C-alpha cells in the first residue's frame, strides 16, 4: 500500500500542501497568516496541474528548433499555460485580499480575529 506514497511524490506533495494550506486558513487567527494559507492552497492546485503534464525524459515545452519538433519529447504545455492564468488569478486575489487587510487595519487597528470581534461596535 505504501508504494503509492513513494511512487508519485509530486501528487503527495500536492496533497500535503493543499491540506497544509487549508489547515493554516482554518486554525490561525491572524489575517495575514490566513492569506498565506490561501495562497498555499492555490499554489498546491497549480503544482497539481503542472505535475499532470510531466513525462519521463521530457524537457521544457519550448520549441528548441524546427528539427526537434516531435511532441513526445516535450512536457505537456497545456497545463503549464493554464496555470499561468491561474497564477495571475491567484495574484489578483492576493491583491484584493491585501487591500482588504489594509482597510481592516485602518479601521480596527488590529489583525487578529479574536481582537476584531471584540472591537466591533454593538449593532455592527
Amino acid at each position, binding site marked *: 500500500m505504501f508504494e503509492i506514497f513513494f511512487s508519485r511524490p509530486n501528487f503527495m506533495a500536492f496533497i500535503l500542501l493543499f491540506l497544509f494550506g487549508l489547515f493554516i486558513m482554518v486554525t490561525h487567527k491572524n489575517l495575514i497568516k490566513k492569506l498565506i494559507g490561501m495562497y498555499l492552497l492555490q499554489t498546491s492546485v497549480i503544482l497539481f496541474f503542472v505535475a499532470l503534464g510531466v513525462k519521463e525524459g521530457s524537457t521544457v515545452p519550448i520549441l528548441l528548433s524546427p528539427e526537434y519538433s516531435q511532441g513526445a519529447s516535450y512536457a505537456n504545455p497545456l497545463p503549464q499555460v493554464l496555470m499561468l492564468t491561474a497564477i495571475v488569478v491567484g495574484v489578483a486575489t492576493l491583491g*484584493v485580499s491585501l487591500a482588504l487587510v489594509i*482597510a481592516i487595519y485602518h479601521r480596527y487597528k488590529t489583525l487578529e480575529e479574536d481582537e476584531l470581534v471584540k472591537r466591533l461596535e454593538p449593532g455592527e
Partner: protein
Amino acid sequence: MTNLPAFLFLIPFVVAISMPMVGLIRKNVCWPVALVALSSMSVVSFFAFHHVYLNGPISYRFGGWAPPLGIEWVLDGLSALVMILVSLMGLLTVFYAGPGVQKTMSQKIVPIYTLVLLLISALTGMVMAGDLFNLFVFLEVASLSAYALVAVGGGRALISSFRYLMLGTIGASFYLLGVGYLYAATGTLNMGDLSLRLSEILESRTVLSGVVFLLMGLAIKMALVPLHGWLPDAYAHAPEPICPIVAALMTKVALYALVRITFWVLGIETIFGNIPFMVYLGWIGAIATLAGALLALSEKNIKRMFAYGGLSHVGLVVLGISLGNKTGYTGGIFYLLNDAVMQAGLFFIAGTLIYRYGVKNVSDLTQIGGKMPWTVTALIVTALSMVGIPPTGGFFGKWYLVLGALEIGNYLAVAVIIVGTLLTLAFFIKILEKMLFEERQAPKLPGLEAPFPMRLGMGMVVVSILVLGIFSDPTIQLIQNVALPSGF
C-alpha cells in the same frame, strides 16, 4: 452573427475599463454611462436570444481556433435565456443604485461603477463559457468584483468581505482541482468534447473525485447550505445600493454553472444512473430549503432575513433540478429566473427602508406608517411571490416543482416544498404584521417616499413578478423548447 457573444461581453467590459477615464472628466457621468452600456447590452441579448431561438446555437471561437483545441463561447437556449436575465437584472439594479451611491458613497462613484460593470461582464463570460477553465477564470473575476463591491462601504463590511473572500477562494480552488482531475482523465477541457469522452470512462475514481470537487466548489459559490457561511454576513453588511446587484446575480449564475456542468457535461444518464449524486444533491437541496427558511425566522435584521430567504430559494432550485424529469427541471429553471427578480426586489425594499428611514431591524418597521406606498406595495407583491401565491411568478415555479415531484412519486420533496413555503410565510407575516398592523411609532428620521430610480426599480420588480406569473405558461413552454438538455 458568430461574433454576437463577443459583443455581449465587450459592451460592459470596454465601458468598465474606460470608466476611470470617464470618471476623471466628470464623476456624475459614470451612472448614466453604466446605464447606457447595460441597456445596449440588454438589447443585444434579446437580439441574441431571438437569433438562437430561430437558428440554433451560436459558437464563438477565440482566435478562430476550432474546438476542442480552441476555446469557445457558446450561446445556446439556456445561456441566451440566462444572458437576458443577467443583462436585465444588471440594468435594473444599477438603475436602482444611482441615488444610494450618490448619497452615501459619492467619493467612490468611479470605482463602484467600474466594479459593477466588471462584475456584469465577468458574469456574461461565465454564462457563455464553453470551456471549464474559461468558466473558472470568469468565476474568479466575478467573485473578485463581488468581494470588492461588498467591501466598498467600509466598516463591518470589510470583515464580511474578507470572510467571503476566504470561503470563495476555497471554493474556486476546489473547482479548479475538479477541473484538473477531469482534465487528467480525459485530456480535454471543452464542455462538448468532455461530455463525449466522459461517457466512456465513468467508473474511474479520477472522474468521480473530479466531479465531487467540482460540485463542492460550485456549491460554495452558490451558497448551498451547509456551505453558505459567507452569505448572510456579506449581504447583511454590504452597502445598501450595491447589495441587490450582488444578491440578484452571483448565486444564480453559479447555479446556472451547476446546471450546465451536471446536465450537459456529465449528461442525464450519468447523473441519475451511473454516478447518482443528483439524488444526494436533492437531499442537500431539501435541507437547504428548510434551513434557509428556518434560520430566517430567528433573525431581527431585515437584510439578514432576506439573505436567508435567498438560501432557501437556492435549495429549491437544486431540489427541482434533482428530481430528474422535464417538469422538475423546467420548474427549477423557471424558479431560478423568478428568484433573481425576487432577491433583487427584496434588497431594493431593504435599501429603500434604510435610505429614507434608517430602518434596519424588523422592530423598527412600525415607523413607516402610510408614507411609503410604493415600498409597501413592492413588499406585499414580493412576499406573495416568495411564499407562492397566484398570480405571482413564485407560485408557478413552486407549482411546477411540486408537479415534477408528484410525477415521480417523490412525496418527501413535496412535503419539503410545502413546509418551506409555510416557514417563508411565517417570516413574512412577521414583517407585514409590523409594517401594517401594529401601532405606529413616530419615525426617527423625516422620511418620504424613495427617489424616482428606487421607486421605478421596485415598480419594475413588481411588474416583472406579475408578468412572470401571468405569462408563466409561455415562459415554461419557451424553456421546454429551448433550454432542455438532451435526454429529456
